[in-house]
């Protein structure tokens, strides 16, 4: 997300970043580096799952057709929701950067609600699949499907909780137009967009392949 240069950070003399000496010589905040390292490990995590899925899928002669087992249209709508949540989050961040905290708080609220909607629809899908005897122990497809989408759903749930905390903080006026004031939104946003990115790939691989 938005990048604070070394010059910009160095002149935020009253900001907590400088106060705690957490601006590295690279000019990048500790928080951003840590978040990107975390996301790097998450990339490996999801790639392991996706790689295993691809090998198992190609190796299994009788693989169910996703459209006969899963609700592709519903999940397509859910994908649209997640994309929308990323858009509202970018809008929220840009609003704070422009000095429009009311719009920013609204954007965060929208992101939280849309994210919660995504989780809700996924839970509904799981209930529907379980009622149709599509359980994790049904076959390889079932176990792969639940592991991949389940871990992703868990990530979204964590993101929704984080967004809820940010939204509450936003309505208490905790964020502002300076980098040190909107950095939590930026860092949480990186995580949120990453979760969106993973879903874009998972949707194509699990539902459309």
């Amino acid at each position: 997300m938005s990048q604070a240069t070394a010059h910009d950070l160095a002149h935020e003399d009253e900001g907590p970043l400088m106060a705690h000496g957490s601006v590295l010589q690279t000019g990048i905040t500790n928080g951003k580096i840590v978040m990107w390292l975390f996301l790097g490990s998450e990339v490996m995590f999801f790639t392991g799952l996706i790689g295993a899925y691809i090998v198992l899928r190609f190796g299994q002669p009788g693989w169910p057709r996703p459209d006969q087992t899963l609700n592709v249209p519903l999940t397509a709508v859910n994908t649209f929701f997640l994309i929308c949540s990323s858009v509202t989050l970018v809008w929220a961040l840009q609003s704070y950067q422009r000095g429009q905290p009311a719009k920013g708080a609204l954007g965060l609220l929208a992101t939280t609600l849309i994210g919660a909607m995504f989780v809700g629809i996924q839970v509904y899908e799981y209930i529907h699949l379980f009622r149709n005897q599509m359980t994790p122990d049904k076959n390889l497809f079932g176990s792969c499907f639940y592991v991949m989408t389940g871990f992703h759903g868990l990530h979204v749930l964590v993101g929704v909780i984080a967004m809820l905390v940010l939204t509450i903080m936003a309505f208490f006026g905790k964020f502002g137009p300076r980098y040190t004031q909107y950095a939590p939104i930026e860092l949480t946003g990186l995580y949120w967009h990453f979760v969106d990115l993973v879903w874009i790939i998972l949707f194509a691989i699990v539902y459309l392949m």
Partner: protein
Amino acid sequence: MADDTKHEVNILACFLLLLLFTAAEIVLYEVWRQSNATGDPFVPKFVLVLIIFAFTLPKAFIVMTYFMHLKFERVTIVGIALVPLVLVAIMILPMLTDIRTLAERNYTKDHTLADFKAPPDKAAHGNSGAAGHHEGAEAADDEQEH
């Protein structure tokens, strides 16, 4: 320098592109599914998969570049983001030979949940593990081909 800190992203353009690619994926898949149901898919399935990935990658690129602001980040951050991708490539490469072999064997055929059910004679013998399952699926394949 202050201008360097805040990069405006054209949110609407990104949103419309993401929407367009997602819609294209779903429409393409649905059209293929219906043509496949008639027994004459307009492209083989592996081509469909390639096309869907051709739509998915730009979406991933847009999210990484503009939403996660990698386009505007310092080299250090871009490096941190790229290292896992290199590792991913290294991880995927050894799998490719397996995937190719398996794909040539299996992937050109279309399967249903019924393929998982062993034929009655196999089931009567207790459906002995993966081998029995495999044979059952192949039998179903043969039926489909005829």
